[in-house]
């Protein structure tokens, strides 16, 4: 009898242990399938390799999970909004209004930033004011922000855990059934890193597959000419396909600040009014412009740098002719500059099936 009890006890223990293992791990030796980023050749040849955290390697299963999460309204409190609501593919993963409306109808105070080529943000400071120190951390914020998706992570994890598909997707992506906030944002970050935009007319021009019109070429010259546009010091040049320096500048929007930008994060008054330089890729799809979406058109933006600069103690020294209001472009140069800027828009990025729901 004692033997029988011992046998039954052992057997029960083994079965339970086995179940427990199965729950936490898909299979011993299972590894998600690595999925290196598809790096465009002119990125590879000209700039440093993208930043992929060792703690969050790109995998087929992780990206697939991240994509599903990015488009899933389950992440918001009342399940009416997904990440993609304010970062819509048709707007190069931005929003077409100055401020986005959260699930309760509240408006934010900053324009939704477009999402592409994020893995090349070497300093890993994200958002207009640089407050987010990695993509993974950034993805935590909107879900719980009361004026955005207004959920809380405990609820989100409960919903994901009891969902008919997600537990299996997490097992495949991370070899675990323990769904957590950290794994959720890792998956979203993996998907976001795949959002590579590098197929504009100007990219093709660099690859010898397209020719700029004379107007577009003059626009590039305006962009690169320190005595005309002088845009290149902050927005890069043909040798840097990111078209941003990814750092923070006061570009002369205001003489006094209602939004401190980087200064609100660093606490340093000399950072007041500084915001991240956005990439000038995909401008055809990302209006309105600036951190507060104040400019509806590219003409407005160009006019700002040409005649509308406002001096302030923290205006970037790279802003030219501030006492004249700006660089004073001719109408022709303004039109050509706009034509050049539009050559950096990549419509194939909007319709790439890997990036759409």
């Amino acid at each position: 009898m004692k033997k029988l009890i011992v046998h039954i006890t052992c057997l029960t223990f083994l079965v339970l242990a086995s179940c427990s293992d199965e729950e936490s791990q898909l299979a011993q030796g299972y590894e998600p399938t690595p999925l290196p980023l598809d790096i465009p050749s002119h990125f590879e040849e000209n700039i440093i390799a993208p930043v992929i955290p060792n703690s969050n390697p790109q995998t087929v299963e992780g990206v697939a999970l991240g994509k599903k999460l990015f488009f899933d309204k389950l992440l918001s409190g009342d399940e009416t909004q997904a990440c993609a609501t304010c970062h819509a593919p048709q707007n190069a993963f931005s929003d077409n209004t100055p401020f986005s409306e959260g699930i309760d109808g509240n408006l934010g105070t900053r324009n939704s930033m477009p999402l592409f080529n994020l893995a090349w943000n070497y300093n890993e400071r994200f958002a207009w004011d640089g407050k987010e120190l990695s993509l993974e951390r950034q993805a935590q914020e909107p879900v719980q922000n009361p004026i955005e998706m207004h959920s809380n992570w405990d609820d989100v994890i409960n919903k994901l855990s009891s969902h008919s598909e997600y537990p299996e997707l997490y097992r495949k992506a991370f070899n675990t059934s323990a769904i957590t906030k950290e794994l959720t944002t890792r998956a979203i970050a993996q998907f976001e890193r795949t959002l590579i935009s590098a197929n504009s007319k100007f990219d093709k021009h660099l690859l010898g597959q397209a020719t700029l019109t004379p107007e577009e070429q003059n626009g590039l010259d305006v962009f690169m000419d320190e005595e005309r546009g002088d845009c290149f010091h902050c927005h890069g040049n043909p040798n840097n396909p990111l078209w941003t320096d990814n750092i923070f500048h006061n570009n002369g929007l205001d003489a006094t600040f209602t939004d401190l930008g980087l200064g609100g994060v660093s606490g340093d008054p000399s950072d007041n009014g500084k915001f991240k330089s956005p990439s000038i890729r995909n401008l055809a799809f990302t209006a309105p412009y600036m951190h507060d979406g104040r400019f509806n058109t590219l003409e407005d933006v160009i006019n700002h740098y040409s005649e509308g600069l406002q001096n302030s103690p923290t205006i970037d020294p790279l802003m030219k002719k501030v006492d004249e209001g700006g660089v004073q472009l001719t109408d022709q140069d303004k039109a050509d500059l706009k034509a050049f800027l539009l050559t950096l828009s990549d419509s194939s990025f909007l319709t790439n099936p890997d990036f759409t729901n």
Partner: protein
Amino acid sequence: MKKMLALLLVASIGFTSCGEDNDDNIKTSAKTSFEFTHNWDETTVSNADFENTEYTNANGEVLTITRLRYLISDITFTKANGGEIVIDGYNLVDVTNNNGLTYNIDTNIPTGAYTNVSFTFGFDNEDNAGNYVDLNSESFNVPDMLGGGYHYMQFDGKFSTDQNFNYHAIRAVDNPGMNPTFPQDTFFTVNLGAVNITNDATLEVKTNLAEWFKNPNTWDLNTLNQMLMPNSSAQIMMYDNGKNGVFSLGSITQ
């Protein structure tokens, strides 16, 4: 007995210490590194001073620094017999972000006396024609219409409270466009002087930022403040000032 043990311990430490010295004395090659420090006429400058500490230049303008980064390349050790060891590489000294302030040389240098240690401020023309992914990533490029290549220096700030300046050094260029011309080279060699390398060594390169505005050209920021890249005369003035006293050898630690 306790005292005896203590004495033995001291003696043991003494011998160990002597042993280390002996190892050092027979060193035949050494690691070298260059530490770039910055001052304004002997007052130390660091990025903590940026955007708040005021300096007065030789022309009397009060200025603050917002951003400073510059390129040095081809560090060269010269022997008395004229033999040279050229370190084929470059370093971007980014004072704003505290990056590149120490440049560790990958190649060990034979110990001994060198009559000169030098480096190039910026890139010589051959190096300037290369493609460097790290410098591209920093958007340190010069527009093709100005001959392409890279900035030698970006030194930005404000003067007279609310005026901006961009003291950007590049290869002097005329006739911007498809076929620019180059009136003279504006990279230059900085000679730090004789150095005796006996051990792994750190050489301090002192950079006096005030000298960029001082000698032989007293720089007038009221007339030369922005859009200096296409201004070959301004570039040549930067060159003249840069090679006259901006850089000097500081301490040697080895």
